């Protein structure tokens, strides 16, 4: 089972990703985080195989979490989950070490394809 940490300020958004992944039977959601600070702490606690990361959320943003997680674990596999029109921020996230991205509204097939690519 692939251990996943889901990061998003919306409970609804976290639930959608959780259900999409759990339905496959291949993923174990080890925890959820709703702020960048929580994401960093929970990454260090669980050391998941994969993180799905929202961008616009408290306290700073998903970019801060990417930066801190990559500093802690340069091999961390982070997939950004972003709305359309955030190409610049996405580029920044990739430069900081994120390994992939999917665009909201999240499509299950697109998410699974990106995860497969990142976990290769």
């Amino acid at each position, binding site marked *: 089972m692939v251990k996943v940490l889901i990061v998003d300020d919306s409970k*609804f958004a976290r639930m959608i990703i959780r259900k999409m992944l759990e339905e496959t039977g291949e993923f174990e959601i080890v925890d959820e985080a709703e702020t960048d600070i929580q994401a960093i702490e929970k990454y260090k606690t669980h050391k998941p195989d994969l993180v799905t990361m929202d961008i616009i959320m408290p306290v700073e943003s998903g970019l801060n979490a990417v930066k801190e997680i990559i500093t802690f674990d340069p091999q961390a596999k982070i997939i950004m989950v972003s709305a359309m029109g955030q190409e610049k921020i996405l580029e920044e996230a990739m430069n900081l070490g994120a390994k992939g991205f999917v665009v*909201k*509204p*999240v499509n299950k097939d697109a998410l699974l394809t990106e995860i497969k690519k990142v976990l290769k």
Partner: protein
Amino acid sequence: MTEFDISKFKDMYISEAREYLTNLNNLLLQLEKQPQNLEVLNEIFRIAHTLKGMSATMGFNNTAQFTHQIETSLDLLRKQEVVADSDVISVLFKCFDTLEKIMEDIASSSTDLNISTEDISKELKSVIELKKKVK
């Protein structure tokens, strides 16, 4: 294609959207008192952005589009390209009222097409353009 039934998340969507709308109204009241408060503006922007994403995920594209317009307007406010004066804040209150009505309607009809956003959308566009000019 993998089947994923999004409709079963409608109640959760409405519940969270209502919570956000309460927060948006409270934050707007704060902004009314402190129009330059960037922290409040950023929080309003973040919530509008989240609401847009949730609506798009549910396939409520009318709501997503309307919320996108609100988000774009708020972005201009936080970049201080538009002044958050009483006229702008008044229209934003109306926008949030419309979103509340949409949520009520979605709860009973499961569609976001019954409540028109055309007039309020025009009003928002117009006040933002006007305040850009006078800045």
